[in-house]
C-alpha cells in the first residue's frame, strides 16, 4: 500500500492548526528542541504513541495532498479504469468510463471477481495460473482480456494490479488499473497498412503460419493455415482466427494428448519469456495416413504486445527419407560421410556443404540424366552404384564408367559444362547425398578443397573411361565380365548384388547370350554363383586373375589416389 495517500484523510480534522490541534501537539511533544523545531516549521509529522498513527502538520498535509492529486492524475492519464478488490478478489470499486457490458462497467463489476466477468480468451488453465499468482500476492502487469460489448464488437483490455497490505502487513486486496487496448490490438491483428503487407507475405509461404496473442488466441493466420483446416490431422492446425490455440492443445484428443500438452507447455514458456524459440516434431494421424509435423514457435521481440508466431510444416517426406536411409540429419553432422569425396573435405567445409546436401534414396533403374539433359543435381553416392552409359545410334547402350562411393555424378558441372553427355543410370539401389546445381557451382568456386578432390576424381574417371574403351575393344567378354563384377563389388562393398544377365549385356555392350556364356564359365570355375539375378562372388582372388589387366590398372590408380 501507499499509506501517504491516506494520511491526510485520516487526520483531516487537523488540517487547520486549530487550538485543539496545538494542544494535542503540546501534549505529545515535551522537549524544548522539538517544540522549537515545530514552531520554526521544520517538522512534518508527529507520531501519536497511543495509536501509532502519524499526525501530519498542515504544510505536510498540503504537500501530500498535492502528491496524491498528481499521482491520481497520472494514473488517470495512463489508464481508463482504476479499481480496487477486497481480499477475496471481489471488486469493491472501479472508477472510469462505462461502455456497455464490456467487463469494466461500474454497476455490474462490483462484488464480482475477474474470472466471473464475461472474458472469452482465458482457458481454465490460464485462470488457474492467474489465481495462483494472486495467491502468491504477486503484482501482475498487462493481463490481456477479451470480451464483446453490447454491439457485438470485440474489445480487448489490459489489466495490471498490485497487492495492498495494511499497517500490520495483513493482505487487504488488490489495487490496479485497466486499459481498453482494442484499437491497439485491432491495428495489430487486421489487415491495415503494414499488417496487410505482412499478411500478403505470410499468404505467399507454403508453411502453415499463424500469430498468437499472449492469451494464445489466433489473431492472424496465413492462407496455407486456413486451407489446412480440411485435413484436420495435426493438433489445432487450420483452426480459424479468433480460436484459442492453447485451449485446443490443452483439450487435444486421446491420441494427441501428450503432443498437445508438450506444445501448450512450450508456447506458455515462450509467452512467459522463458525461452526464445520452441521446436517440436511429432507424428499424427491424418485421413491420408500417418504424417510427421514440425512446429516452430518464435516470440516477438520486446514485451508489448507479446506475439507468438507458429510455423507448421509437414515433414513426412523428409522423415520417410531419413528412415529409409537410416540417416538422421543430426547424426550426419557427426558421423563421417560414406562418400569419399565428402569425407576428404576439411571438417568446417563439410559442415557448410551439409546445409546444401540432402539424402536421397535411389532405386535400381532410376535415370539421373539422359545425354543432353541439363544437370539439375550432383550426386555423391553413399552406397548406391551409378553407371555412366553411352549410346551410339541404334546400338545397345555401353557402359563407359561406374560411380560409387568413391566419386560424384555430375562431373561436367565442375568443368563448367551444365549438360550431361552420358546417361546416368542407377545400377545398385542405395542412398546418395545430392546438391542442387547452382549451390554446387557456388561451393565449387569458393572451395579449393572441393576443387582439388573433384579434379583428382575427374582424372581417375578419365583413366577409367580410356581403360574401358580399350578393354571393350580388345578383351574377351569373360574377362570383361570379371572386371565389371569386381568393380561393382568394390563400389557396393559387398560380395553379393542383384543384376540380371540382360542388364549385364547392356553394360558390356554384348548380346545376352554372350553374357550367359561368360557367366557360366566363371561359375564353372567356382569363382561366382548366381541365381535369378542374385550374383555372389565366391573367389575374389580367382576372379581377379580371370579379369583382364584393366581392372588392376584402374584399381591401382584409384587406390593410389585415395592414399
Amino acid at each position, binding site marked *: 500500500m501507499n499509506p501517504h495517500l491516506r*494520511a491526510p484523510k485520516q487526520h483531516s480534522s487537523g488540517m487547520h492548526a486549530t487550538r485543539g490541534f496545538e494542544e494535542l501537539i503540546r501534549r505529545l511533544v515535551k522537549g524544548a528542541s522539538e517544540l522549537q523545531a515545530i514552531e520554526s516549521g521544520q517538522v512534518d509529522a508527529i507520531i501519536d504513541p497511543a495509536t501509532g498513527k502519524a499526525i501530519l502538520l498542515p504544510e505536510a498535509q498540503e504537500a501530500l495532498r498535492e502528491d496524491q492529486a498528481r499521482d491520481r492524475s497520472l494514473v488517470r492519464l495512463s489508464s481508463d479504469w482504476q479499481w480496487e478488490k477486497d481480499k477475496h478478489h471481489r471488486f469493491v470499486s472501479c472508477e472510469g468510463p462505462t461502455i456497455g457490458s464490456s467487463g469494466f462497467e461500474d454497476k455490474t463489476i462490483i462484488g464480482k471477481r475477474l474470472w466471473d466477468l464475461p472474458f472469452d480468451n482465458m482457458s481454465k488453465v490460464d485462470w488457474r495460473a492467474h489465481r495462483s499468482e494472486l495467491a502468491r500476492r504477486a503484482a501482475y502487469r498487462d493481463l490481456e482480456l477479451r470480451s464483446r460489448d453490447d454491439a457485438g464488437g470485440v474489445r480487448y483490455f489490459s489489466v495490471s494490479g498490485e497487492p495492498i497490505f495494511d499497517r500490520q502487513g495483513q493482505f487487504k486486496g488488490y489495487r490496479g488499473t485497466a486499459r481498453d487496448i482494442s484499437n491497439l490490438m485491432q491495428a495489430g491483428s487486421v489487415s491495415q497498412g503494414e499488417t496487410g503487407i505482412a499478411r500478403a507475405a505470410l499468404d505467399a509461404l507454403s508453411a502453415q503460419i499463424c500469430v498468437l496473442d499472449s492469451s494464445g488466441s489466433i489473431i492472424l493466420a496465413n492462407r496455407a493455415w486456413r486451407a489446412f483446416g480440411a485435413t484436420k490431422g495435426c493438433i489445432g492446425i487450420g483452426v480459424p482466427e479468433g480460436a484459442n490455440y492453447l485451449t485446443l492443445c490443452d483439450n487435444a484428443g486421446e491420441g494427441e494428448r501428450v503432443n498437445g500438452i508438450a506444445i501448450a507447455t512450450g508456447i506458455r514458456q515462450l509467452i512467459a519469456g522463458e525461452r526464445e524459440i520452441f521446436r517440436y516434431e511429432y507424428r499424427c494421424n491424418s485421413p491420408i495416413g500417418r504424417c510427421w509435423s514440425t512446429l516452430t514457435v518464435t516470440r516477438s521481440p520486446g514485451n508489448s504486445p507479446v506475439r507468438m508466431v507458429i510455423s507448421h510444416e509437414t515433414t513426412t517426406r523428409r522423415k520417410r527419407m531419413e528412415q529409409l536411409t537410416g540417416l538422421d540429419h543430426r547424426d550426419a553432422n557427426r558421423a563421417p560421410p560414406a562418400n569419399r569425396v565428402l569425407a576428404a573435405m576439411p571438417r568446417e567445409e563439410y559442415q557448410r556443404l551439409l546445409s546444401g546436401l540432402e539424402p536421397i534414396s535411389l532405386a535400381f533403374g532410376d535415370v539421373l540424366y539422359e545425354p543432353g539433359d541439363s544437370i539439375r543435381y550432383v550426386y555423391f553416392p553413399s552406397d548406391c552404384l551409378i553407371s555412366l552409359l553411352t549410346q551410339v545410334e541404334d546400338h545397345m547402350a555401353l557402359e563407359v564408367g561406374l560411380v560409387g562411393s568413391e566419386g560424384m555424378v555430375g562431373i561436367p558441372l565442375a568443368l563448367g559444362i551444365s549438360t550431361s553427355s552420358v546417361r546416368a543410370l542407377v545400377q545398385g539401389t542405395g542412398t546418395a547425398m545430392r546438391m542442387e546445381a547452382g549451390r554446387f557451382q557456388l561451393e565449387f568456386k569458393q572451395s579449393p578443397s572441393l576443387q582439388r578432390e573433384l579434379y583428382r576424381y575427374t582424372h581417375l574417371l578419365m583413366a577409367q573411361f580410356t581403360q574401358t574403351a580399350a578393354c571393350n575393344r580388345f578383351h574377351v567378354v569373360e574377362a570383361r565380365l570379371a572386371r565389371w563384377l569386381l568393380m561393382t563389388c568394390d563400389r557396393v562393398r559387398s560380395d553379393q548384388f542383384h543384376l540380371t544377365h540382360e542388364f549385364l549385356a547392356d553394360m558390356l555392350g554384348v548380346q545376352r547370350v554372350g553374357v550367359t556364356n561368360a557367366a557360366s564359365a566363371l561359375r564353372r570355375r567356382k569363382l561366382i554363383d548366381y541365381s535369378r539375378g542374385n550374383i555372389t562372388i565366391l573367389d575374389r582372388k580367382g576372379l581377379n586373375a580371370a579379369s583382364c589387366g584393366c581392372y588392376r590398372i584402374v584399381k591401382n590408380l584409384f587406390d593410389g589416389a585415395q592414399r
Partner: protein
Amino acid sequence: MVVLRLYISGNAPNSVRAIANLEAICQEHLKDGYKLEIVDVFEQPVRALADGVLVRPSLAKVSPAPVANVVGNLSNKSNVLLALGIKGNVR
C-alpha cells in the same frame, strides 16, 4: 564508521529537505565513513513506535556513543555537526 538513522514521513517537504541537507553534510565531512538508514513512517509504521522517535523528520546517531538526536529539517548545519561529534571540523 558513523551509523545514522533518519526518520522521515514520505515526501513531505521537511523530510525531503532533511535528506538533502544530511547527504550534503555527510559528503563534506564524513566522505565514505558513514552508514545512513532512512526510515519512512509510511513504509515502516510499526518501527516508529519501536524506536520511540515521535517527531519527523529527525536524525539519530546510533553509533559511536554517545547517542544523539537532531529534530527538524537539518538546515542548521552546526547543530547537526555537534550531534555527530565532528564539531571540531567546522570552519
